[in-house]
């Protein structure tokens, strides 16, 4: 497995390289972009934005609510002791447990969705360069079909073309 990539000092150059790659027939999914920080002011950063995380978090919250409702009610009925003249199943205090469990499960569902969809922990990447942590933006293609065309597309002013793998 081999990869051809270039490092760019700014988002505009990286965007031009991506445009050139796409114009050369490389699909967007085949282009890898890596950066050391979120580059929210660039078009290439707009990919993969839609997520089901909000729905999963809400579903997690709902599971927490149902679980807490079952737990409080079941335990109060399993050990039916009268306390402070409150009913055996006391909804006012139970609401506190239900609220906390809703939030806890919602948070855990969001984190789980993050780990699964962002593939964390992930395998050792084929395409990676530590220089992205110093502000560079990596644009590359793994196993390019036409290496010469890809290299031409990546050759923007200021770019450093590199190879990795076999």
């Amino acid at each position, binding site marked *: 497995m081999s990869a051809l990539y270039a490092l760019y*000092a700014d*988002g505009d150059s990286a965007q031009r390289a991506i445009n050139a790659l796409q114009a050369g027939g490389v699909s967007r999914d085949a282009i890898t*972009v*890596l*950066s*050391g*920080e*979120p*580059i*929210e*002011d*660039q078009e*290439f*950063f707009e*990919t*993969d*934005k839609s*997520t089901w*995380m*909000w729905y999963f*978090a809400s579903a997690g919250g709902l599971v927490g609510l149902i679980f807490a409702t079952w*737990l*409080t009610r079941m*335990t*109060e009925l*399993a*050990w039916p*002791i009268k*306390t*402070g003249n409150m009913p055996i199943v*006391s909804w006012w*205090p*139970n609401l*506190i*447990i239900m*609220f*906390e*469990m809703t*939030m*806890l499960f*919602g*948070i*855990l569902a*969001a*984190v789980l969705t*993050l780990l699964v*969809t*962002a*593939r*964390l*922990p*992930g*395998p050792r*990447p084929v395409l*990676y360069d*530590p220089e*992205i*942590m*110093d*502000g560079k933006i990596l644009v590359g293609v793994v196993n390019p079909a036409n290496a010469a065309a890809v290299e031409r597309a990546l050759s923007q002013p200021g770019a450093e073309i590199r190879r990795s793998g076999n």
Partner: protein
Amino acid sequence: MSEASARKLSDDLLRPLLQTSWRFYVLVAFLGAIVLMGLGTWAYQMYNGFGITGINHPIFWAFYITNFVFWIGISHAGTLISAILRLVNAGWRRPVTRCAEVITAFALMIGALFPIIHLGRPWLFFWLMPYPSSRQIWPNFRSPLVWDFFAITTYLTGSVLFLVLPMIPDFALVRDRTTGLRHRIYGVLALGWQGTPKQWHRLESAMQIMAIAIIPVAVSVHTIVSFDFSMAPVPMWHSTMFGPYFVAGAIFSGIAGLIIAMAALRKFLHLEAYLHPVHFQNLGKLLLLMSLLWAYFVFAERLTIWYGNEPSEIAVMYVTQKGSFAPLYWTMVVCNFVIPFTILSLRKLRTIPGCVIASFGVLIGMWLERFLIVVPSLGHKYLPYSWGVYRPRPVEIIITISTFAAMTLLYVLFSKFVPIISIWEMKAGDHPSPALSAAASHEHALGETHA
């Protein structure tokens, strides 16, 4: 951000991780010795029984529960403030958030320890957990102490995740900057982070969801801590305003704790280029606001009790204002209102040293406030024959002091092994989302450009 700026930022913020001075070892040894002394004292208390403390009839809650409420309050510095600033997209939050979130995680751990210390037999702590024991007894969900367990568990879990998730990209940075064992350890912690747009989007979405979820949880935690008191028919406890009063007090003391921590980091880790005076001024304004809110709550509480003239409540009120607790009460008023109001309302005095002085005052004042909520009411319940006094014994004082050392020690160790300022968030300040308005963009950059 240019390559040179990015590299300088990383170098500056990774310096504490990569270079260790002898002062670090001396400080860790000193704080560690105090913590060990505290642990030893706790073991001594377990061995000899609770009789060696000053806790006795009718005052069964004293220093330990005061510390519990105080530390849970301090924990409101971090996640809550960080979540609010993140949601409103305040640019000046970037250097502040992690310093604050760490306080939450450690203060919650220390706070949650006190009910366990207070149990006397801490090994029976697991009775609070909802599981069917051999006697088929479940926790009583109508008890506020069980509410505490659930609220603190949720807040601690949420806060730790809220702290740890944004650390992953920074772990990747440390992984790429180090070699040997350190490279391997940070490589594991980085979870294979690459920095694809998809990973950044998912991280931002998760942080957004958690910020939304954690704010009501933070409010609920201290409201529930207040319920430990207000659910009991004890003079000056049984009040409907205790929930918001406690939450306001918690945020108040939390901000004070954050200012002190930031000032210490700025000085000792040489972070002057990142923690600007404007950050302290902004937090100072928040502290001033909370001081005024605190004074408003105290006035509302005291006026209502004075006007109601209910004998048992008046007895507690007067013992705090005129009786044996008066020196503590008036110290509290000076520390929580007079000092912060005087310093922070004057622009000239709202400097870094001014904010730190006010914050130390607030921490002292808020600890006294917690003490004055707990002890005088228990010592002056409805009938005078059941009144009593409380004097703390050395064991309680040592354990209290050691928790302050524990908090400092944990903070020092954290800032040694993790970048205390989120490096990627600082860099991201140069790439604001186009969705932000022009005015918001200006605000967005404030934290980075204001010297």
